[in-house]
């Protein structure tokens, strides 16, 4: 006959308390017994305690640990404890557990105060900023060397990265900007109709898309798509020691991994923005036709008349700068990955968030400069 659970019977006779265990005293059946022991009240008279393991069928190290820890506690309170068993195996196990146990051990991490946590975060951020500067400096030096000897330029890698991070992004960039063009045109047509200023939708769409919306949205899509990919790829390469392997073989990671990505994105970003310009304007044109009755011919006529070419160039010029920020932040976070899996996730997230943030700041700076220059 086998008892499928662990059981504990507590009996009190005179000044003795008996704890009679039976069944499987193993890890998966222990919790009931533990609570039973925990809430057991001994009467005033009790001086001796007997732990009886005669009826136990199986005992594992966790069960042995629980009983020994209980006995230790009770002896500490001045009770006289005896342990009853006849199984030699149990004796051996109990001996072993006793020899290797550490009482009252706690592995919970020390709590740190709010102030200390704040200080830590600030220092950490400063350190990250410093190491980004160091990375940027190193990258600039590498870029200088790289471009000063044109024969060392790795066209194959650059072409590959152009395809990976720009050509393959054309579809999503075009679609996103087309939809944004539709949304903007739709919202503004309602307002413009009120004043009968239908034709001004061309001015509005032309300037806002060419100058701001297309570059910004392209940068955001690329940051989410390629910036994160750079961080993850290079981060994994760091964990698997591929970067170290490259270094020992004399392949400079900057020449092989960093610069091709940055250059490819800097070259391709204006092209992506150009495509975004086209699809954004097409989206706007479509809605102008449907909502405001502006024919495409009229729309384009007006477009050529009121939207200056400088707006187009302003949008395009921002491209390489955004690309530099996105690619270098992505790669930097890839290189910051430490030797554990979690830091890949953390750094990939950071790369996207920080790249978008940096792009917005850069855009604001451009706005100020261009306004002051009167462009």
């Amino acid at each position, binding site marked *: 006959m086998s008892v499928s659970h662990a059981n504990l019977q507590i009996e009190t006779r005179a000044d003795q308390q008996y704890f009679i265990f039976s069944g499987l005293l193993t890890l998966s059946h222990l919790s009931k017994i533990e609570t039973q022991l925990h809430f057991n009240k001994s009467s005033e008279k009790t001086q001796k305690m007997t732990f009886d393991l005669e009826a136990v069928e199986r005992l594992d190290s966790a069960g042995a640990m629980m009983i020994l820890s209980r006995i230790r506690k009770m002896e500490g309170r001045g009770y006289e404890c005896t342990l009853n068993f006849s199984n030699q195996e149990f004796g051996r196990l109990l001996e072993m557990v006793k020899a290797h*146990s550490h009482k009252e051990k706690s592995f919970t991490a020390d709590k740190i105060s709010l102030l200390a946590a704040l200080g830590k975060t600030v220092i950490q951020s400063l350190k990250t900023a410093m190491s980004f500067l160091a990375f940027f400096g190193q990258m600039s030096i590498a870029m200088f060397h790289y471009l000063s000897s044109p024969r060392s330029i790795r066209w194959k890698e650059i072409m590959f990265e152009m395809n990976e991070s720009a050509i393959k992004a054309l579809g999503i960039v075009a679609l996103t900007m087309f939809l944004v063009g539709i949304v903007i045109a739709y919202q503004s047509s309602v307002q413009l109709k009120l004043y009968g200023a239908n034709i001004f939708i061309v001015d509005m769409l032309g300037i806002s898309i060419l100058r701001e919306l297309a570059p910004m949205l392209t940068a955001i899509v690329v940051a989410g798509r390629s910036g994160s990919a750079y961080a993850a790829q290079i981060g994994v390469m760091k964990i698997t020691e591929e970067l170290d392997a490259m270094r020992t073989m004399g392949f400079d990671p900057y020449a092989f991994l960093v610069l091709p990505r940055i250059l490819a994105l800097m070259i391709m970003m204006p092209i992506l923005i150009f495509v975004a310009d086209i699809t954004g304007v097409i989206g706007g044109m479509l809605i102008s036709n449907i909502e405001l009755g502006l024919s495409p011919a009229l729309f384009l006529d007006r477009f050529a008349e009121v939207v200056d070419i400088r707006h187009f160039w302003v949008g395009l010029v921002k491209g390489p700068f955004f690309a530099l920020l996105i690619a270098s932040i992505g790669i930097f976070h890839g290189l910051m990955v430490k030797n554990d899996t979690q830091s890949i996730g953390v750094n990939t997230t950071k790369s996207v968030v920080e790249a978008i943030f940096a792009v917005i700041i850069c855009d604001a700076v451009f706005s100020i400069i261009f306004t002051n220059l009167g462009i």
Partner: protein
Amino acid sequence: MMIPVIVAENIVTRFGNKVVHNGISLHIKEGEVYGLLGPSGCGKSTLMREMIMLETYSEGSMTVLGKDVSNISPSSAQELRKQCGVLFQSNALFTSLTVAENIAVALQEYTSLSQKLIQEIVAFKIDIVGLNQEDGRLYPSQLSGGMKKKAALARALVMDPQLLFLDEPTSGLDPISAREFDNLICKLKEMLQLTIVMVSHDLNSITTTLDRMAVIDHKKIVAEGTLEEVMAIDSPFIKTFFTTYSKYLR
């Protein structure tokens, strides 16, 4: 008579068109240290992964602790997993948790014991694998290779498993740490009455720790038995593999 813990009958494993095992049969008895040997790529690790239900075989039958692993309900599979501890070749410690948390995670998940008792069990496991109590607070990335192995072993042992699977336990360790690890395995086997299944290439561990072994070559088992029995068998792999060993002895 000893009860077989794992019985495999005519296991055939195919990956697409590639046949990895073609009719493998073996039985592993309770309380022994059993080795799976063979040249690289012969499917030792695959066979072990089939035993712990990480992969499935194409034909044949395999019972682990009396349960047929190819035809098992999710709940009894879960029960079986609790009775098996696995030490992976790359340790597979959870990098976001400290050593103590790595060991405690199964206890937190599967039992409702008090935190105090869980901490005590963790301290005990840390002690029996020969780590210092202070190491419990460290993260895996702060440990040396040998310490990681020990921490992963402590995690494998936390549920007091009956069966312990080791995938190349001494790979990546220096000879001294490797011998220490072999001794540790033998000691733990005695102390906790484990049945151990081990994939190994390390001749030293093979000769010192294994009770019985199976040699897989050309998709079949070419030999099964004790070291003497295996060495008596005429097979090119066994010959080249163990000649190095006999040279070593001289």
